[in-house]
């Protein structure tokens, strides 16, 4: 019980209300109620549009999830915000661009076994492209870790942070040079064609150059592929982290590094593996993002990287399910605010959401309680 320090004679229910923190929580509740009412009215007015926005938000959310996982895993294990992560994402997208447009990698099965159905060829081809990007990103991520982060592991954390920023700038501007990625906004050639479906009295294919009937909800094969790939990769990750030895080592190292070392865990290798996995996911995310928004340029990693980072914090940085949940929430917040408020304001709303969540739960939704008190 609080000790009544002041004999101040305010009206008692007023001070008691303030005491119990009703004001702050009340305001937040009010805000939440307003948002719910707004969304509710929109849903009521135009349910089809509402569902469409949610579907749009899913596409973004899953791509952010792939990037956010990299951030959260790296932070969990070395307490470093890897600013270069967004640029690894960018490199993944560019690798797939070169693979598809220069080397036509997505059609390699054709030259080997041309009698196979087109769909199968494209499927295998796309998977190969994604795998290639993941592989290159793994190399890149591990190299960055070894060259730039490992020497600073015992230095003050801010030095590693600044180094991360430096690596990020370097990747971006080196990529902007004319003999690398050029500073152009290059149109990305998708490894497969887009097909759109619309839902109205059942799911129908939308042929090219035709308008969908009013009141239908649209989605494309890109969305389906993104969702399937992301869920697959996240499940795979969960499996690795929960069921394999290396996963156990990763969890142990992120829990208590010195003790893990004492237990004989090769901490350096584990950290490199973490970076590798995170970079692989970012690479896959890059390919999927480029397929969804077919334009690659050297700065493309900054904004998605930032949003994925916010998503990771929102969900609780260091927590893998948290990254997924946070990313999905971010995707929805973006889509809904773009649809119902205005597109230019959506970043502000996403960040305000983050700050509000941090105020209520200081370590994010699934975050572990902080060990050092403020």
């Amino acid at each position, binding site marked *: 019980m609080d000790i009544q320090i002041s004999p101040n004679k305010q009206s008692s229910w007023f001070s008691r209300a303030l005491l119990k923190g009703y004001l702050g929580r009340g305001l937040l509740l009010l805000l939440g109620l307003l948002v719910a009412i707004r969304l509710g009215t929109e849903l009521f007015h135009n349910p089809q549009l509402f569902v469409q926005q949610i579907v749009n938000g899913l596409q*973004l959310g899953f791509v952010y999830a792939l990037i956010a996982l990299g951030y959260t895993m790296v932070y969990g294990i070395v307490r470093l915000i890897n600013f270069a992560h967004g640029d690894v994402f960018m490199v993944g997208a560019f690798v797939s661009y070169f693979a598809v447009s220069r080397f036509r990698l997505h059609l390699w099965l054709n030259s080997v076994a041309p009698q196979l159905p087109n769909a199968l060829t494209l499927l295998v081809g796309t998977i190969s492209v994604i795998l290639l990007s993941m592989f290159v990103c793994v190399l890149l991520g591990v190299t960055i870790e070894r060259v730039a982060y490992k020497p600073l592991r015992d230095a003050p954390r801010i030095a590693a942070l600044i180094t991360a920023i430096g690596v990020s700038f370097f990747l971006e501007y080196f990529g902007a040079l004319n003999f690398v990625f050029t*500073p152009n906004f290059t*149109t990305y050639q998708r490894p497969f064609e887009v097909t759109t479906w619309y839902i109205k009295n059942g799911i129908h294919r939308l042929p090219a150059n035709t*308008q*969908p009937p009013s009141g239908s909800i649209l989605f494309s094969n890109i969305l389906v592929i993104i969702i399937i790939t992301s869920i697959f990769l996240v499940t795979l990750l969960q499996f690795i982290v929960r069921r394999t030895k290396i996963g156990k080592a990763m969890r142990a190292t992120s829990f208590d590094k010195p003790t893990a070392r004492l237990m004989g865990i090769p901490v350096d290798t584990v950290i490199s593996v973490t970076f590798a996995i995170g970079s692989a996911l970012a690479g896959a995310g890059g390919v999927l993002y480029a397929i969804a928004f077919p334009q690659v340029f050297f700065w493309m990693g900054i904004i998605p990287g930032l949003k994925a980072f916010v998503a990771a914090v929102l969900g609780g940085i260091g927590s893998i399910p948290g990254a997924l949940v946070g990313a999905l929430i971010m995707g929805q917040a973006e889509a809904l605010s*773009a649809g119902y408020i205005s*597109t230019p304001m959506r970043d502000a709303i996403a960040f305000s959401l983050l700050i509000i969540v941090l105020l209520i739960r200081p370590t994010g939704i699934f975050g572990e309680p902080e060990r050092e008190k403020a």
Partner: protein
Amino acid sequence: MSKKLLIILSLLVIASMMLAACKPAGSSKLKLAILAPLSGPVPTFGVSTRDGAQLAVDEWNAKGGVLGMQIEAIIADSQCTPEPAVNAANKVIDQDGVHYIIGEVCSKASIAISDIVEKKGVVQISPTSTNPQVTKNVDGSTKQYVFRACFTDDWQGGSAAKYALTKLNAKTAFVLFDQGNDYVRGLAEYFAKAFADQGGTVVGQEAYTAQDTDFSAILAKVGEQKPDILYVPDYYPAVNLIGNQAKEKGITAIMMGGDGWDSPQLDLKAVDGGYFSNHYAPDDPRAVVQTFIKNYKAKYGVIPDALAVLAYDATNMMLNAIKQVGKDDPAKVKDVLATGSFDSVSGLIKLDANHNPIKSAFIMHIKDGVIKLDTTLNP
């Protein structure tokens, strides 16, 4: 040790300032600065501008230069952004002693530079900035030293609207614009106004920002309205993305745009069936156009886009005016520019009272991966 470091650093800074303060010895070349966005949001525009202007400079130099001197082109990267543009302008004016600037491409950068050139008495011709504010002061008077080689957005937007209503039989239009870009906003506003004034209905206007890649929310609204025309007067990066996503969502509205579409990087599949207003057309049969295309292709290996053409024209304008004045005197050059008329690749350039040329607009049509001239709209 650190104290020595401090002293060394401060000496270095002061030394570099001293070094810089030394004015370069007067050279026997006429200096012309080219401020182009070689990096930043529209790099192809910068490259085209630089190449077009450089071609003009080389041609003049081959014929003996101007005023008996060879012309030295000083190229600076202004990144289509106000702050670097200002730094670049200051550098070429103060450090290199330039009196004549060709630049910039983007209206917001040109506006920023124009304040400086007005103050310092340097002549500026912007090849492609179409926003009226480039040559006008805040109070509406015309700036003395600033000119342009292209038509302005009110003419461009207006003629696009007229074309849509008359030739394309459009009744409704939806306008999208980047709210952070004066050029895009201006064009969108003029188009919307002209469209409504001439009997059409603008069924919606939506804003986005330059960094947006996901336009699904906006396009959902467009899909609901089912307009005849989707007007996207932005630069090619945004147009590519919007076009792609619109096609995915089954939006069959005819896409229209402005000269920002003109780039080798325009995704022709994304904007298939669309139209855009431009400053010149490669299939214009006039001899001056075809000769220019031949020379440009010989030197750079690609067909010039409108930005290269306008940079070429702007440079020629400048050098012709200097030749007419007879000496290196910016104050006199500006007077010649204000009253003269210049025949150029993009048409006859005669400047009105606001230092803006009255020129034809070329409506280009994109179909099946080919860009063709559709109509020429004369003022």
